[in-house]
């Protein structure tokens, strides 16, 4: 595990240096600053992949009702939201340097904001439900249901003809050969490192979930470990009327 982490760290350093060494991409307003795409695009790919994985795991959780699968599903939901936030942050930086403003209200920017909100609601939902079984079922159902709007917002809406005409997003620049093979190498390198890091994070997060499950079996509630569950203890009303004397 330590060796894998070392290799990953080295790979991240090499990939980052590579993104600065490669020549600027032509076809952008600020070719030198188009390097943001090296980080933005792989994060967006990761988010899309994790949305699909969460839906698949959601189906598995609903079929089996297994707490172990719910732990895996929870890890995927968290990672999806994390990569979604990173996609949005790098996209906002791209907007500033290429379009001159932090928020362009570009259709693609707005549609991804909606995707990010969908992912955030997934996290809030998990944090809001105290009962483990109910949390697993509701969260899994949400992930499955969220796949439909996510597919529309990520793949369909930005490619509608009138949206493509209005949008500043450089999807067309990329499709029309704005990136040469060297740029593709940079993109693939960063993407590979992000996949490696996501696998490492996923395994760590699943291990945390499994330990929490074990702890709950042997010691009861695990809320004090920051599981994120709402306090499910009941407060019963008690009569405080003073007793009348004889």
């Amino acid at each position, binding site marked *: 595990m330590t060796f894998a982490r070392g290799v990953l760290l080295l790979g*991240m350093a090499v990939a*980052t240096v590579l*993104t600065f060494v490669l020549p600027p991409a032509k076809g952008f307003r600020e070719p030198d600053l188009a*390097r*943001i795409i*090296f*980080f*933005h695009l792989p*994060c967006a790919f990761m988010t899309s992949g994790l949305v699909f994985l969460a839906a698949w795991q959601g189906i598995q959780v609903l079929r089996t009702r297994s707490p172990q699968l719910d732990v895996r599903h929870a890890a995927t939901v968290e990672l999806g939201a*994390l990569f979604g*936030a*990173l996609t949005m*942050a*790098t996209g906002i*930086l791209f907007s500033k340097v290429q379009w001159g403003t932090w928020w362009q209200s570009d259709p693609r920017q707005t549609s991804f904001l909606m995707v990010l909100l969908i992912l955030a609601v997934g996290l809030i939902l998990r944090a809001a439900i105290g009962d483990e079984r109910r949390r697993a079922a509701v969260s899994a159902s949400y992930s499955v249901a969220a796949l439909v709007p996510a597919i529309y917002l990520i793949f369909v809406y930005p490619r509608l003809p009138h949206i493509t005409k209005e949008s500043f997003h450089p999807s067309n620049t990329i499709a029309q050969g704005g990136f040469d093979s060297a740029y593709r190498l940079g993109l693939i390198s960063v993407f590979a490192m*992000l996949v490696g*890091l996501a696998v*490492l*994070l996923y395994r*760590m*997060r699943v*291990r*945390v979930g499994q*330990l*929490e499950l*074990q*702890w709950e079996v*042997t*010691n*009861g*509630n695990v809320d*004090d*470990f*920051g599981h994120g569950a709402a306090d499910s203890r009941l407060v019963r009303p008690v009569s405080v009327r003073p007793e009348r004397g004889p």
Partner: protein
Amino acid sequence: MVPPILVWFGLFLYVQNVDRKLRTLESAMADPASRSKD
């Protein structure tokens, strides 16, 4: 320079958070008596 720092730092923070939880749980599982629940 900002985007790679942003991405790697964001992921690093998450790693730190999960790693801290993992260590806490592992030590609690190893020695449950040392941790009081309330």
